[in-house]
Structure formats: C-alpha cells, structure tokens
C-alpha cells in the first residue's frame, strides 16, 4: 500500500501539472488567438443561423413582454426588440444638440407645428401612403386609438405623465392630428416619440394581454418568432412603406451573463453586442480579433447622491466635492473613456446644459479646511456610502472615492445591497447617507420629478430630500414653458443653484459600447434610451 501511495503522489503531481497547464492555456490563450487561422470560425455559426443576409445580436436581457406601454414592458429590452417593428410620429436620434435634431420626423411628414403656446396646441401630419405590415393604411385614427388605450383606466399603463394633460385629441382628417393640452407642457415631444399601434388589429382585444407575445407595427421588420428563454427573430417587412432594409433577418439571442456575451462574440456565435460598461471592457473587446468597437458617452449619468437629512452640513458636502478627484475616478474605472460630468443634464443637450459643477476641481487643501469647519459645527465625518451590489463599476468607484476622501479626513464606510433592495427600500425610505446610482435621461431635459421639493418620497423620486423652493418653482415653470430659449434659461438657473446646494455630485455619463464583427455596417451609437437599434433598417452585412 505504501508503494501505491507514492505512485499516487507522483501521479497527483503530474495531474496537477496538467491541470495548471490547461489553466494557463485558458488564462493567457492570446497566443492561440494570434495564430493565423486559415479558415477562421468567426461568423460562421452566426451566418448559419441568420442566413446569408441576416445577423445575430447577442442581447443581455430577455424582454418580458413586447407591449412597452404596460407594466412589464418597461425594460430597455422591450423597446430594443420592437425598435424595428414599431414607429412613432417622431424618432429619437443621437444628435441632441437641439430638440428638433433630437426628435426627427418618422411617421410625421415634417416637424410638428406649435399652433399656440398657451393653451398649448400641437399639430402634425402623417406621411402619405404609410401602411401597417399587413398592408392596411396607417391613419390618424390609429394615433387616436393609441392615445385612448393609454388613458383607458382598465389598462395597466406604466405612466400617463403628460398624457393626462391632453384636453382634446382631434383628427380633422385621415392624416392630421391636433392635440390640445390643458396647460403648457414643454416635454410634449416625448409623447410624439411614443409608438402608434394598429387599431384595426387590436381594437377588440384585451390591451393587457394581446400585445405581450406578438406585435404588429409599421416598421421595416416584422416579428417572426420568439423562442422564450432563447431568442427572438425579426424578418423583413414585405409591405414596408419606406425604403427596403438591407438585412433579411435579425435574431436577438438572450445571453444574460456579460462575460458569456463577450465570449459569444469572440467565438463568432453572435455578430453584435452592446455590453453594459464594465472595468476593462473596452480592452477586452479590442483584443477580440476581427471585431469593431464603438463607444460614446451615454445619456445615463452616474452621480454621488446625498441624503440631505443625514448629511445636512453644506461644508461637509463641499469638502467631499473638492476632495474627490473626478478626473482620476473616470481614469481609474473607465480608462478615461468619458470625461467627468459637470451637471445634472448632459452636454449633448445643448443650450439646456451648463457645466455648473465645474467649480469643484480637486483641491484637497481646501477640502481639509472645510472638513475642519464642518467638524467644528458638529458634523459627523464618518459617512456610509451605498450602492447596488454586484456592479463592478460602482463598487470600484466607491473604493477610489473612499481612498481619496480618506486623505482629506473623511472616513467612508461602504455598505451595499442588491439593486432590488437599494431602489426598492433604501432610497425610498431614506436609509442611506451617501449613495451612488444613475438616472436614465430622456432627450427632453425635464428633471422636475427628481429635484422638486414636492417630489420627496413617497410622492416622487427626490431621494435626496432636496428642498429648495426657488429651484422647485423654476422647475415647475420650466415644464410649463414651451419656448425653448426661456426654458433653457430656467433650467440653467436650476443647475447653478443646485451646484451651490450640492444635493449631489455628478460623476460621469455611462459609456455606451457596441462591438461587432467586421463587415457589419450601420451601427451608430445612440446614447439615448432609443438604444442601438434606432436605425436598424440601415444596417447591412457583408461576410
């Protein structure tokens, strides 16, 4: 037995060696990647699945339902899946510099006309000869029916914000829509960027269930098949009223794990991915042979939030603002891919934006002084810092900030929890001192629900418990001001004042990253909620 044991030991060592070698191959297998493969496997499988003129998109989340109006349809997945199917009078483009460039006519013939500012009356005309994918004409009656569905009490509509201000929805003729609001409503374009649904198909169906698993629209593609848990496929709309799309077929494969998503592109199983920002993501994507990578600053912005009931000392907040080296933070976690953000709106929003937080440059000296003053006033310099657990980007940010603030005499304790609990309980109940999260921004610059004093939970999303009457007044006034110049002026005032009050410190815009195979043309980063597939009819593939 002793003899066999020693043999066993030798064997064990050999096996361990093999295991380590295998591991090394897996770990630093770039050598393998560099070998010139005569017949690269890249793209092969994706091609097999999608056919000559189709693509496979790796997508990290499966939609729950396809109806984006009702509860469950709030995920980005729903709007991304239906981007090629549904159309709206206006569509959101990546050019946010003016409202008119951000919202461009899609089903509407031209930019809507503001007939009167007070009372606000908007009128637009639908294009001539547009049809649903079944060939039936798309008319103003469909637009009205869609509005009626949103207002129908029996439907589980997610939001009626804006819609409830509509006093009358008139359709003078088949192509004209005239909307009268009960009070001026500046973000009215958002309502016109909402899809129109076909009345003749869903008229007699239950709106809460009929559009969950299948959907009919007027766009360049139609839904072919949704294999739950696996993939969803679109094919070319044979009756499309516009220019024929280049692609015949688009398959969305659902791959929830980011790492697997990237590996799938690497293995050539998918042609396009848009993974969420992560540490070292770009570097990894750029290492993939034959992949193109595109990235841009998005309109979702990360920020450090204060619960003003807990961190009520302004000097302490200023100390934190001066103590954090925001440039270093973005350099650390995103390799400087995006610059630090200086406001609660994004620069892409043109006139509405002003870099109000620019004054808070890294100044540890000043920060230390402010900490001392705050301490003298009795402020607690140990602060807990919370965010959603499992998000590497945020957790790294916390650790960098923790280190930076330690140098100016502020002790940061990190306490995180699952996103569910963080947004479901902590922010709502005010169970945090300093937090880190992101807001999704719509191209329209209204931020009233976030910072107005009458929006403190449970009434709204002012999780900062920020109460400034002046700001509240400006915000509400801005929402009622249809004139773009005046509205921009009010919102710039809001930003300047908030930079003084410091209920939050903006950090950066989340980068939006697309990676796709060579030969795929057309993807153009759209940082807004309109998502990557806003121009899917222009995509083409050559293998």
């Amino acid at each position, binding site marked *: 037995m002793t003899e066999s044991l020693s043999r066993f030991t030798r064997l064990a060592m050999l096996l361990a060696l093999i295991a380590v070698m295998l591991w090394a191959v897996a770990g630093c297998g770039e050598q393998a990647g560099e070998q010139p493969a005569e017949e690269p496997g890249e793209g092969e499988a994706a091609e097999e699945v999608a056919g000559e003129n189709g693509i496979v998109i790796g997508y990290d989340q499966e939609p729950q339902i396809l109806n984006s109006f009702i509860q469950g349809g709030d995920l980005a997945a729903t709007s991304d899946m239906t981007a090629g199917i549904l159309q709206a009078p206006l569509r959101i483009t990546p050019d946010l510099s003016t409202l008119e460039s951000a919202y461009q006519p899609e089903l509407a013939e031209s930019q809507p006309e503001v007939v009167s500012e007070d009372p606000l009356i908007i009128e637009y005309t639908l294009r001539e000869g547009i049809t649903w994918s079944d060939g039936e004409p798309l008319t103003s009656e469909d637009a009205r029916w869609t509005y009626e569905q949103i207002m129908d009490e029996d439907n589980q509509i997610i939001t009626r914000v804006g819609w409830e201000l509509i006093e009358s929805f008139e359709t003078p003729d088949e192509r004209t829509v005239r909307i009268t609001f009960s009070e001026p409503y500046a973000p009215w374009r958002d309502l016109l960027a909402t899809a129109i649904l076909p009345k003749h198909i869903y008229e007699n169906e239950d709106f809460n269930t009929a559009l969950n698993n299948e959907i009919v629209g007027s766009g360049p593609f139609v839904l072919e098949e949704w294999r739950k848990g696996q993939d969803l496929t679109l094919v070319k709309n044979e009756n499309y009223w516009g220019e024929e799309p280049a692609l015949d077929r688009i398959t969305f494969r659902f791959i929830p794990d980011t790492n697997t998503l990237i590996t799938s592109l690497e293995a050539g199983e998918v042609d396009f991915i848009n993974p969420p920002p992560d540490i070292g993501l770009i570097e990894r994507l750029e290492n993939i042979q034959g992949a193109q990578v595109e990235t841009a600053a998005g309109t979702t912005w990360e920020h450090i939030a204060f619960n003003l009931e807990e961190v009520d000392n302004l000097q302490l907040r200023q100390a934190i603002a001066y103590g954090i080296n925001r440039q270093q933070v973005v350099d650390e976690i995103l390799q400087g891919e995006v610059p630090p953000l200086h406001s609660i709106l994004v620069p892409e929003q043109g006139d509405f934006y002003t870099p109000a937080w620019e004054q808070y440059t890294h100044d540890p000296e000043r920060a230390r002084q402010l900490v001392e003053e705050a301490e003298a006033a009795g402020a607690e310099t140990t602060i807990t810092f919370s965010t959603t*657990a499992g998000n590497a980007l945020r957790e790294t940010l916390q650790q960098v900030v923790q280190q930076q603030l330690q140098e100016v005499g502020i002790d940061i304790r990190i306490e995180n929890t699952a996103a569910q*609990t963080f947004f479901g309980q902590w922010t709502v109940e005010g169970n945090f001192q300093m937090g880190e999260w992101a807001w999704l921004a719509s191209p329209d610059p209204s931020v009233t629900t976030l910072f107005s004093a009458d929006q403190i939970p449970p009434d709204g999303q002012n999780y900062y418990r920020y109460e400034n009457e002046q700001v509240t007044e400006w915000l509400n006034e801005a929402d009622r001001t249809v004139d773009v110049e005046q509205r921009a002026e009010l919102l710039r005032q809001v930003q300047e004042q908030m930079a003084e009050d410091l209920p939050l410190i903006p950090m950066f815009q989340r980068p939006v990253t697309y990676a796709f195979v060579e030969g795929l043309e057309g993807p153009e980063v759209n940082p807004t909620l309109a998502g990557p597939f806003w121009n899917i009819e222009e995509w083409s593939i050559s293998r």
Partner: protein
Amino acid sequence: MVDQRRTGAGGGIESSEVMQAAEAAGEEYGKVEGRTQREIVWRRFKRHRLALISAFVLILLYISAIGAPVFAPYGYEEQDFTRINQPPSAENIMGTDRLGRDTFSRVLYGGRVSLMVGLGVGVFSTALGAGLGIISGYYGRAVDVGIMGLTDFVLVLPFLPVMLVLGSIFRFTPLTITLVLIVLIWTQIARLVRGEVLSLRDREFVQAARAIGVSDFKIMVRHILPNVVGVITVQATLTVALAILLESALSFLGLGIQPPTPSWGNMLTDARTTMTQQWWLTIFPGMMIVITTLCINFLGDGLRDALDPKAVE
C-alpha cells in the same frame, strides 16, 4: 475512546468485521490489540500520505491567513494608481489589480475571510447539527419529531431568497455570511448523525449503561458521541470545503462578501471578465480555492479511513 474499542469487541456486527480485519491484516491483529484507539487512528492516518500533506498545507494556509497583517507586504485596500494591472514581478509577486492593489496581499487577506468562513461554518454547523442529531436520535418520539420537523423546515427554506433578504437586513460581512450558512447547513449533519444514533441507542452497551443508572446526558456524551465521532469529523471537513465553495458561488450571484473586503470568491468573480488579459487576477484566488478545498477533501478522506472502525487494511 475506550468505550468505542469495547463496543467494537462486544457489538454483534463489529465482531465479525474484526475477524475479517484480523484475517486481512494477518499477524498484525495481535499488535493492534496492544494499542490505544488514538494510536491506531494516528497510525492509520499517517499512512494516508496525501492526507498528511494536506493537513500540513492547510495548517500553513491558516497560519498565513491569520498572520496576514504580518505577512502581507501591503494593505488589502492600499491603492497605487501608478501600478495598475501589473503582471507578477519582484515587487508584487502576484501582480496588481485595476486599482493598483497588491494581489498577493489581497489573497492573504481574502484567505482570512474565506478560510474563517469555512472553518466557522464547519465547526459550528457541525456542532449544532451533531448535537441536535444525537438528542433527536437518542430520545426519539416527540423530541425526534420536533427536531426533525425543524430540519425538514430548514431544508425546504429557499436558500437564495433567504440570502437575499438577510443580506438586506444585516448587510454581508464575513460574520453574517457565516451565521447564515450555519443556519442553513446544519441539517444534513443532523440527519446523518440521527440515523447513526437510531441504530446505536438500543444496542447492548447503551442499554447496559442505562440499566446501571447513567444519566442520559452522560450516555450521549460518553457512549454515543464517540461512536459517531468519525461521521462527524468527516462531515465537518466536507462542510468547511462546502462553505468556501458556497461563498464563491454567492459572490458570483452578487450575494457574497462585499468589497473592498476581499474574499477568494469575490476576487475570482470580479476578475473573471478580464481573465484573458489579467490572468494573474483569476489564477491566484482560483488556485487558492481549489488547493484549499482539495486539501480539505483529502484530509477528510484520510480521517474517514483512520476513524472507520470497520476499515480493512
């Protein structure tokens, strides 16, 4: 210990096995008779060379984990932005991570967390499980029904939601994770021990002890416990390994120990997306998990052989 040998000789079933053992071991039978139980166990254990090596490695690991503040060249939170993502070098023998932290130091401190969670869960859930298992098996009837009801109940408790909810109440620290794992894991040991005790409690030596008026507590501790100590020890080692693996699995699901406190599990999870670029960030914590659980399993195997009264050599 002495009791167990007596049982071995007196019990109906074991006697035949001792005979077999004697046959198999040939002339060794006589020598065995002259040793104490402890000597026999140690002698058998020593022969399992891999288990011996494993025990040695584990002791080293625990020493380095406990002494992490002494051995680690840097603090686990110490960031150095001039040295980001460096491969292993003389200065940082396991390289540095995305914040310029020294991987070697983090592996040591991470070991502290992982090994302590493992040991804590192993010891306490085994103690709890074994205690309740013995009581349940020994008393039977209502006590048994009650305790087994409790184990059945814990068994059906949904592991993930419990973690999710408790995580939102207590926040995840090494201590709370250990506690939660103890509460959720002890049942297996309890069931196993109870099963053993059920077949022991009506045996001659227990009946004899009862007849001469030995108290229940004494019977359980002095007569029953030594007979199940083998099962318990082996199970305890396996539980340590299980807890270390569970911690890493929980980290993967975002429910593990929260940064900046390192654990092997969360280090491995954090680094997995950059595995092809910064291989040193996955290999070292990954290796540590594999080596540790491997050693624990070998140790358990060695103990099983050494403690098994029926073992044929």
